[in-house]
């Protein structure tokens, strides 16, 4: 380092302590409260004391900020290393081909999913785990799990699927008395207070595993008993009545929808 550089550094430090402090605080992680705290405190410090006060912070930043930053970096590296596209995830998918095949009955194109998405879709829809649980298993975040679940091409089928829940004892009177939009909450778009199809499917499987009423069976019922799963889309061929759509009261005929590419889209698909 030349003398001129050192001189410039000293001048910047003494004349612009605010700038120097902001540069030093870059050692802290972005969301660390110390960043805001020290910048706010500097405004209280008398102007002539500021260079010395900033110099005091160097010690703290070295002892506290850098280790904190290193911990964050290490955690990020570990998380990336345990990203789902690794051998652990792939091995966890072995032996579950039948369940993966069962997902195709929901309209999910399993062949086009990455290993990550397969794992996430299996865990959330079939096993009924929450996004937080799956994130814990993957060493990722719940937000990343939700993104992996809803990212194309998983989204095409995952949003469409739902678990039909035929009641053990039919209650036609109660069913008829409900308004149309309350019969199948899965068909409601999320912005109207409804739940997304995948979450509802996960809830349905949860209920099935716990043996709660409203679901036909316990355990991993989804892939092995695809008849209980009624897709909402066009390909929902079958003997069961369509559980789709009809989410909006007052609409008697399903309004044909098109997606942004102009392709026909079945009604009832949540765009959330």
């Amino acid at each position, binding site marked *: 380092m030349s003398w001129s550089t050192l001189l410039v550094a000293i001048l910047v430090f003494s004349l612009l302590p605010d700038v120097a402090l902001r540069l030093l605080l870059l050692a802290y992680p972005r969301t660390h*409260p*110390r960043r*805001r*705290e*020290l*910048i*706010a*405190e500097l*405004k*209280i*410090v008398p102007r002539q004391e500021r260079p010395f*006060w900033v110099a*005091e*912070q*160097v*010690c*703290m930043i070295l*002892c*506290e900020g850098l280790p904190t930053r290193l911990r964050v970096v290490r955690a990020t590296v570990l998380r990336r290393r345990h990203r789902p596209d690794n051998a652990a995830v792939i091995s966890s998918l072995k032996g579950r081909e039948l369940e993966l095949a069962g997902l195709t009955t929901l309209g999910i194109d399993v062949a086009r999913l990455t290993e990550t998405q397969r794992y996430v879709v299996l865990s959330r829809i079939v096993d009924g785990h929450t996004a937080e649980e799956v994130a814990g298993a993957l060493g990722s975040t719940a937000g990343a799990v939700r993104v992996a679940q809803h990212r194309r091409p998983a989204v095409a089928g995952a949003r469409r699927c739902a678990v039909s829940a035929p009641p053990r004892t039919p209650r036609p009177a109660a069913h008829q008395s409900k308004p149309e939009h309350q019969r199948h909450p899965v068909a409601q778009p999320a912005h109207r207070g409804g739940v997304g199809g995948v979450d509802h499917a996960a809830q349905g499987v949860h209920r099935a595993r716990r043996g709660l009423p409203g679901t036909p069976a316990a355990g991993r019922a989804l892939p092995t008993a695809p008849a209980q799963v009624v897709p909402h889309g066009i390909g929902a061929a079958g003997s069961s009545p369509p559980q789709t759509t009809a989410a909006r009261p007052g609409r008697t005929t399903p309004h044909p929808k098109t997606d942004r590419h102009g392709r026909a889209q079945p009604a009832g698909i949540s765009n959330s």
Partner: protein
Amino acid sequence: MRKTHASVQVAMALLANPTSRRWGYELSKESGVRSGVLYPMLTRMLDQGWLTDGWEDPTSIEEKRPPRRYYELTDEGKLRLGGLLAAARDDRRFASLNLRFAW
């Protein structure tokens, strides 16, 4: 928390006015502890539940500056820091601080 000169001085400054909000710079001035020591100590107290923190209401700030972070003693903090001072009172290492135990 270890019993050191800095921790005893910070405890005295905090317990001098245990119910009010305290600011980092003011605490540093009152206790005579350098801010490089004070802030990590406050963070440890926060982790142990002796203090709570918060941010100043921006609408209440008259000058042009960002909101500051304040610290408040919890009931547990009052007990613990009181115990720390009581223990320091009998310790000869802190004899020079005896005059400031007037609280």
